[in-house]
């Protein structure tokens, strides 16, 4: 009896072991519904927080109402680099279908063979995307646009700061936030500062770095938490770097405690592309989703919800919304950022910040 119990225990242990081994090897995608364009699931990877909330309400829910047999699973990440990191990890066996991420990062993904080309025959709305917002090699097109601006406390600044130099103003010393590289905000600020100092940032950023070193002792935080907008709203900082879309959204949410402005020296776009993952388990349904995301209906709804400018020519926005999204008609001075170049210097510039600028504090 005693040995029977022992063998029973041993057998149970072996069964547990096999179950563990099986669960470790399991979780592979079935891919059975890859061919269906109107049913199955679509796994989307994109930004977290209010972006996720607003995109779900403005785009995903109406999509699911239109295609009740397609279920969207949203995996959220804090940044595009986080998304790319996740996609690299699943390269041999992808379990994501669509990725919405920053253009500079999706370019890296295109080069690494993580994405497929998006074909106009399966995504009819691609026809409404102007050439300037399409990928020259046929990969994922631009899905929405935003730009970097100055976010400010409306009490401390009754009139919006007109120049980037407001960040260097001694009166706000200690109450400035920036988002250091590798964030796109920090990369863009480096290029903008370098341009303000008369440099071509693709050749040298030395003067820009010197100017940023002067700013460093006045910076409250190089990595605002929970984010750059809450820092201003709670009074931890009064001016800083931010994105127009979120700044506009939080201006409404906070009863206009925070404002966002585009300085006269010019700014940089923050562009999100919508990408089809190579070897996507549900590629047909994923194309249906991409097509919907590029529809005027979806683009208008998201612009109204989170103030991103549409990337399709047939989207028409109400005047009050149009006034708050970033202009894409050439009326705003935009510094053309070479996405490929910035991707290649992202690590170098990050190191420069870590070694030369942040240490000046």
């Amino acid at each position, binding site marked *: 009896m005693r040995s029977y119990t022992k063998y029973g225990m041993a057998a149970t242990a072996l069964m547990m*072991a096999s179950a563990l081994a099986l669960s470790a090897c399991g979780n592979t995608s079935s891919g059975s519904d890859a061919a269906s364009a109107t049913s199955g699931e679509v796994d989307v990877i994109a930004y977290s927080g209010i972006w996720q909330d607003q995109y779900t309400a403005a785009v995903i829910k109406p999509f699911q109402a239109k295609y009740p047999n397609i279920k969207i699973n949203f995996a959220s990440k804090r*940044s595009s680099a986080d998304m790319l*990191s996740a996609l*690299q990890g699943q390269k041999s066996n992808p379990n994501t279908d669509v990725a919405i991420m920053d253009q500079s990062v999706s370019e*890296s993904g295109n080069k690494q063979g993580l994405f497929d080309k998006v074909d106009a025959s399966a995504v009819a709305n691609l026809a409404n995307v102007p050439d300037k917002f399409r990928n020259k090699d046929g990969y994922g097109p631009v899905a929405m646009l935003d730009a970097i601006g100055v976010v400010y406390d409306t009490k401390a600044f009754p009139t919006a700061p007109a120049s980037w130099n407001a960040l260097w103003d001694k009166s706000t010393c200690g109450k400035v936030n920036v988002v*250091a590289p590798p964030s796109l905000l920090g990369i863009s600020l480096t290029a903008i500062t370098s341009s303000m100092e008369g440099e071509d940032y693709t050749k040298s950023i030395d003067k820009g770095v010197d100017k940023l070193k002067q700013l460093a002792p006045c910076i409250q935080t*190089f*990595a605002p938490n929970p984010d750059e907008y809450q820092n201003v709203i709670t009074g931890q900082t009064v001016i800083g770097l931010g994105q127009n879309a979120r700044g506009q959204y939080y201006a409404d949410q906070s009863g206009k405690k925070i404002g966002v402005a585009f300085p006269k020296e010019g700014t940089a776009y923050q562009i999100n592309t919508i990408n089809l993952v190579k070897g996507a388990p549900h590629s047909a349904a994923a194309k249906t989703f991409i097509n919907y995301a590029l529809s005027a209906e979806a683009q208008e709804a998201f612009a109204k919800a989170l103030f991103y400018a549409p990337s399709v020519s047939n989207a028409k926005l109400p005047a009050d919304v149009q006034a708050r999204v970033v202009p894409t008609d050439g009326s705003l001075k935009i510094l053309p950022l070479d996405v490929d170049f910035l991707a290649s210097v992202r690590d170098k510039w990050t190191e420069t910040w870590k070694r030369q600028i*942040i240490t000046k*504090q």
Partner: protein
Amino acid sequence: MTTTQTQERPGLRAGNTPGSLEKAKARRDRRTYTALLIPAILGLLVSFVLPLAYMIRMSFNHGEADGVIIEGFTLDSYIQPLSDPFYWKVTLDTFQMGVVVGVVCVALSYPITLFLARTTSKYKSALLAIAIAPLLTSAVVRTYGWMVILGSNGLVNSSLEALGLISAPLKLTNNMLGVQIGLVEISMPYAILAMISGFGRLNPQLEEAAGSLGASKFQIFTKVTLPLTLPGVLTGFLMVFVLSISTFITPTLLGGGSVQVLATEIYDQTTGLLNWPFAAALSVILLVLFGAVVAVYQRLTKKLGG
């Protein structure tokens, strides 16, 4: 004793000596124990050994600027941090942070632990539960709490300003001080738990004996209490040190981007710059640092024990 037991057994067959029966039983036992160990071993293998091996292998690959990993065998990812003064400074700052947090945390937790170990109150268990209750809240939530308390308009600064002690807010967060304050509080329950288990050798009668022989309270503490509790103190320190140098949540949230330690550097390299080989090499360096500290700890406890 053994012979008596086997003689009493009814199923003893002719030809089977008691010794061989014992051996067979031991073999069976061993097999059972081995089988019972398999799930745990497999679990360890899948969740610890394989990822560690993968990480070590990754550290020998080459990482390109845009996140491309080139498989191969190169020591680049080790040469770069080891030959660069910046990474030596990051390592030194990490180590320093661990030591400061460890010392302060143990110093603050010691009186509480001593009280909990010696109290004869009927509420002892409840008091112990209260001391470690912060563990029920996530470290992220507690760190956010510290952001609110230490911020420019936070509880500390606004109280000091209201009392007229300061005219401008002190910078208590977005720097190393803020990280250390947060880490000390977050690690205290761990320090208390680790120390209380090491205070077993503390016998109140020894203190009473020292007192009756004329030792002052201070002498009792330095000659009797402290030496007896030192192994527990060392364990508490090691626990807090290891937790602080490996955590990245608190330095990330309370450091404001200006606190650069190994854990935040690994996080940035992995998720921000996508240089996995470099991040893996930094992780191996951190692991070696852990190993060195644990080795020193073992030597010290052996000395104290002997």
